[in-house]
């Protein structure tokens, strides 16, 4: 499974760094003013991360490059309604990147019609405000990485299908030839394990 291969690997999260840094606000203001240098700075900060997320989903470098470009142009065109003071820029970029890749994979699989979810609606700039800065610390990312190792094969599979293939639980059940209830149980338990690891980290 791809997720298994990811676990021992280097943390791309290091690229995420401290996502809610104070200089986000300044960068957002410059992006809003459509300063070209701001785009260069945004790409410097998030380019590798967005490309990594996209490539992991589409598994084609040429397509990943196209979608990364599309991601940054989308940010460029929609940053006007982003909250410079309360917004979390990097999670927004990561979400847009992932959604562009999922949208591509879905269209390749002919799943556009089947998907009842409007990805576009889920990446509106206004949704990425008041994110907990602590939740995005590098330490907690390490914890999350080690928590992935605690998942069993079924739990890892459903997490992978949801995050990297954009499958609904119904689609997972069909793919895995399992009852929908079973898939829901695997998904719920997997997320609980991952989440609890972060809660423990927060308490510690």
């Amino acid at each position, binding site marked *: 499974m791809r997720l298994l291969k990811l676990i021992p690997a280097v943390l791309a999260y290091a*690229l995420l760094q401290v996502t809610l840094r104070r200089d986000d606000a300044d960068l957002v203001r410059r992006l809003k003013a459509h300063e070209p240098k701001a*785009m260069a700075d945004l790409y410097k900060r998030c380019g590798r991360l967005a490309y990594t997320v996209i490539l992991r989903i589409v598994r084609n470098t040429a397509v990943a*490059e196209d979608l990364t470009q599309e991601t940054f142009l989308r940010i460029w065109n929609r940053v006007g309604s982003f909250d410079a003071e309360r917004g979390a820029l990097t*999670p927004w970029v990561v979400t847009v990147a992932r959604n562009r890749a999922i949208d591509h994979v879905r269209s390749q699989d002919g799943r556009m019609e089947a998907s*009842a979810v409007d990805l576009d609606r889920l990446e509106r700039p206004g949704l990425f405000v008041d*994110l907990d800065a602590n939740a995005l610390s590098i330490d907690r990312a390490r914890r999350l990485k080690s928590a992935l190792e605690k998942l069993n094969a079924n739990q890892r599979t459903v997490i992978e299908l949801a*995050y990297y293939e954009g499958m609904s639980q119904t689609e997972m059940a069909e793919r895995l030839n399992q009852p929908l209830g079973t898939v829901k149980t695997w998904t719920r338990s997997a997320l609980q394990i991952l989440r609890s690891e972060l809660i423990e980290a927060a308490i510690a």
Partner: protein
Amino acid sequence: MSCQELQDLYELYALGVLEGEEKTEIDQHLGRGCENCRRGLADARAFNAVLLSIGPAEVPNRRLRHRLLASIGYERPGWFWTGMLAASLMLALALWMGTQERERSNQLADARQTLLQVTGERDRLNQALRFLSDPDTQPASFGKGQQAPPRGYVFMHPQLGVMLIASNLPAAGAGKTYEMWMIPKVGAPRPAGLFQSDGMRGLYILNGPLDLAALNAVAVTLEPEAGSAAPTTTPIIVAPTGS
């Protein structure tokens, strides 16, 4: 459903993979301005971003940055160096083409010089043929009976002038030249032009009308390179005109 029941679904909702009644429930909570769900979804978005970011980092090709910045009309500083490189290449190309052009020019000049020499030779031969073919030409020989002196002929024509053909005529040497003299029956020898030998043969033509009746002989002496107004050495060729 309560917020407590929905909290395990926030991540899937934020990913856009939740469906059916569960999705509708969260939509309704958000529609009612449910702060718990809004807060929970904000945390879920942060959680998802972190989870998606875990893994080996990939490095995109540098062209992606160029493409992206070019698409918004931003000419990054790197283009300066690209421009400099292009300018350097153009300069090198121009220098190379200049060298080629100079080489071609030199070759062309050499070809022109060769053509002039060939044309000159041709003209001299034409003149020689005119001397030899004209019935009014009078020949005179020189050097006959000597061991290894220059030998040859002088052809005289009242309108064409004098043509001298000599064999066994050594090269004049550095700073020296051969000078032909018209030696009249009365008076001092008159300079009649300078010429060189290729080491074996010498051919010299003096154009212009000639008073054959007043001429006693044609002579050649070895003189300084610039020539002399009067002979300074003993003649090595003396061709009596016999008239």
